[in-house]
């Protein structure tokens, strides 16, 4: 009943992709969303490298000029090399965006940011805030927890 190595690897990489998507959809904090995107990219890169594997083959590097009998596919490896570096560059840019959002709004909870964004946009457009007729009259007091500076 032991799973063979292909199934283990597929579980691992698809598991990373799924956990990454879970994190993006279900988390409320911007920093955790950025970390979930990083997990998603790692899982996808793992899948790409797995697609070029052949059992019993050697790495595509010639040692001392001897050519091995069979080598794995070098094209997915070159593509994943590019993908990893691009992923980190985009993650760095996302963190800078998170820094600016924190400076502008003071909070990193996406629910509170959504409320503040709606208020800013409606103020800028000059229209009154849309109020639903089902809204309760007294809003519950939510404590904005600001991190210790």
């Amino acid at each position, binding site marked *: 009943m032991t799973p063979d*190595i292909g199934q*283990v*690897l597929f*579980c*691992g990489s698809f*598991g*990373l992709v799924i*956990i*990454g998507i*879970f*994190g993006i959809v*279900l*988390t*409320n*904090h911007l*920093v*955790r969303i*950025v*970390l*979930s995107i*990083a*997990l998603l990219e*790692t899982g996808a*890169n*793992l899948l790409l*490298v*797995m697609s*070029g*594997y052949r*059992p019993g*083959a*050697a*790495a*595509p*590097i010639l040692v001392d000029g001897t050519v091995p009998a069979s080598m*794995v596919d070098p094209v997915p*490896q070159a593509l*994943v*090399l590019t993908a*990893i*570096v691009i*992923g*980190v560059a985009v*993650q*760095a840019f996302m*963190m*800078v965006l*998170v*820094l600016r959002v*924190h400076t502008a709004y003071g909070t*990193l*909870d996406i629910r509170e940011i959504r409320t503040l964004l709606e208020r800013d946009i409606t103020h800028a457009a000059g229209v009154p805030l849309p109020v639903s007729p089902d809204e309760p009259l007294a809003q519950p007091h939510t404590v904005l*927890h600001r*991190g*210790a*500076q």
Partner: protein
Amino acid sequence: MQAYAYWIVLVSVAVMLTGAVSVLVLRQYMAAVVATAVVSLGASVIFVVLRAPDVALTEAAVGTGLAGVIMALSLRRLGLHRDDDPAHHREDESGER
């Protein structure tokens, strides 16, 4: 594939999945950043077993080192490097009510 390679891959996949789940579950943000770096390290070990040393070197240097440093630096600038997640506290309170 040799026997020991199978066990290395099994352990690495287990470490990766545990690290991925703990990114979403851990309270402190710095711990979540470290868990992301652990996931990258596990992926780098698997790349070596899959006969891709170039990719393993890149993932270890870039995914673990550089991404971890950039995230930790940004956490420090946000002032969150010692804080817990307030949402976890709120869920605990609503559970006790």
